[in-house]
């Protein structure tokens, strides 16, 4: 274990380890993790543009869609769905150069022939993140199993069919890391190397920095992934482009950003994030292939990223650790315990 891993592990173990009872993390109830959440929902008959505004205003990447006439939730709407919707529309027409700077809203309206498309048609469009529910009593072990298959979030329902909150991969990881000292069963895997966890190499789906953003988004959609590594000609990692980056495109009505290069988009996003927070981030979020699983999770938690690219000593991307991969590994622990 490196110096830094030991330091971090000691901090976790020492920090507020007030309880003497050893808990089983797999038995934690889903409901307890969403207790204090304020639920944001989208009306099924709202327009796609209005739904987008809800996501932007609340700083979230997805929200459940509620149908008032049916009195039930009919799906989730997220940026992936929005992107798929836009790509579908754009595929149907050649966008002329002069149209490349129009407002996104106009684009959507024009292409849907001035009939506002209700969001219930757009939700779950990407097909990647279907609406999944669990009960308050559902144990974390089961939820983590779902996360490990690629489901990014689940809706937690009470016995009466009311939604209590949304439990995401990110918030679950955050919870586990904060309470690591209470769950000694998790500590051995934290010290394993990425290689031992089978995460140090894998297929890296990428795009060259000079390719257009729109082409990258189409590629993501075609390959059913939510992000691509942005590489230079030598294969060195320059940054990352993901479905959620569309929020930056929407936020400032920059449809023209669909036609800039991926590297330019990475720069623009970094530039605005740095000014907003007063702190610049490192251009790429990655971990060295020799890092431990625990260090990778700490970095995912701290940066709130959904994936860490794995790089070799030359800075070339050799693999990726996504939140789905993390939960697949954790879910694997449960199976071996049985």
């Amino acid at each position, binding site marked *: 274990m490196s110096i830094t891993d030991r330091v971090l592990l000691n901090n976790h173990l020492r920090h507020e380890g007030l309880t003497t009872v050893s808990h089983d993390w797999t038995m934690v109830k889903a409901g307890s993790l969403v207790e204090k959440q304020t639920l944001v929902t989208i009306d099924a008959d709202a327009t796609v543009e209005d739904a987008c505004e809800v996501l932007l205003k609340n700083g979230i990447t997805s929200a459940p869609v509620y149908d008032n006439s049916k009195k039930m939730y009919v799906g989730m709407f997220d940026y992936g769905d929005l992107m798929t919707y836009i790509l579908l529309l754009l595929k149907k027409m050649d966008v002329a150069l002069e149209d490349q*700077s129009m407002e996104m809203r106009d684009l959507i309206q024009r292409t849907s022939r001035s009939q506002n498309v209700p969001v219930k048609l757009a939700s779950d469009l990407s097909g990647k993140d279907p609406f999944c529910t669990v009960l308050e009593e559902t144990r974390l072990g089961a939820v983590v199993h779902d996360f490990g298959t690629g489901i990014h979030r689940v809706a937690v329902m009470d016995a009466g069919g009311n939604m209590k909150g949304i439990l995401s991969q990110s918030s679950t990881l955050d919870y586990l890391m904060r309470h690591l000292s209470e769950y000694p069963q998790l500590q051995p895997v934290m010290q394993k190397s990425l290689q031992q966890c089978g995460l140090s190499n894998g297929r890296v789906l990428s795009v060259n920095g000079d390719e257009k953003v729109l082409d990258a988004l189409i590629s993501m959609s075609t390959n059913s992934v939510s992000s691509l590594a942005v590489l230079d000609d030598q294969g060195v990692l320059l940054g990352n482009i993901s479905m959620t980056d569309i929020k930056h495109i929407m936020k400032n009505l920059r449809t023209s950003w669909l036609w800039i290069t991926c590297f330019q988009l990475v720069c623009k996003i970094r530039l605005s994030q740095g000014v907003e927070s007063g702190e610049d981030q490192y251009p790429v979020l990655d971990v060295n292939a020799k890092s431990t699983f625990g260090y990778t999770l700490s970095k995912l938690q701290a940066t709130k990223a959904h994936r860490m690219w794995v*790089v070799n000593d030359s800075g070339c991307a050799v693999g990726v650790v996504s939140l789905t991969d993390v939960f697949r590994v954790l879910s694997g622990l449960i199976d071996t315990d049985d």
Partner: protein
Amino acid sequence: MVLDLDACIESLFQRQLLAESVIKEICEKTKELLMTESNVVHIKAPVTVVGDIHGQFYDLLEIFKIGGYCPDTNYLFLGDYVDRGLYSVETISILTCLKLRYPERVQLVRGNHESRAVTSTYGFYTECMKKYGTSDVWHYFTDLFDYLTLSVVIDNMIFCVHGGLSPSIHTIDQIKVIDRFKEIPHEGPMADLVWSDPDPGREEFAVSPRGAGYTFGSMVVEKFLHENRMDHILRAHQLCMEGFQVLFDDQLSTVWSAPNYCYRCGNLASILEIGVEGERHFNVFEAAPENERPTPAEAQRALFSNGVPAGLFSNGGSNGAGVGGGGPNGSNGAMTFAGGANGSNGGIDATQDAIHYFL
């Protein structure tokens, strides 16, 4: 080539760019000088300490106006000379010349922005290309950055670094043995020194939300100062609305020297004046008066007049549309999305930092 440094400095004060061959020569000579410096340079007060500048050239001139000119005032610059502002080239050129001209009076510490990876993303590379037509000047400066020292100690009492502390470094001697003559690595002690941030809410180290370096707390600070028999840590790296911030019971200060950061944050800036007895005074200042500085739109026009084709700029509508403020998409009209540009269409929105004109 015979270098007339005084003439170079004079031109730079007039915001005139130096010729590429002159920059090459200056960088070569400065590298020779910096090579002899330790990773920990020891100096004595009085000295004036400057935080992040980020290419805000007119505000650097302001610093000289209020703090005094070289060599009358001793200066310690804590890094982040380039990126984001409109005049990174002029800023780093003048600081390099001043270091070469007055090596004992000017200290330059390396910041996280003095790096190839970061300057490729945050504006300096693009500015060099636009102002010189090739990437040579960027190469000369980024090669020079590899030689900048990592830290300075004032009167054996104040430890000065750009970012902060590292879990791998407990003593000053450990810093001295680092091989610094290279690009800043992604991880490790050298990365930590330029990327870390204090966290008053913690006691220990934690992985940083920036994706490099760590956050460190009160116990880390106390231990470091005690072990190295010093009484203060001085650093930059984080925007401070008041121009400076003092933490951990006056054991650590952050000094920030780019007022109205990116020409829109509205923050104050400061320089820290340390007297012979070790007394510390934050001299707070505002952005240089508007009428002495061109607006981003004027800077953009200036670039156009150099023959840079308008189509090079990705924001399509820049062909004469939206002069100064307002998006290039001409979206000065009704705002349809609430989450947009700080509610005001007239002002520069979140993605229209001045440097975007270069992208």
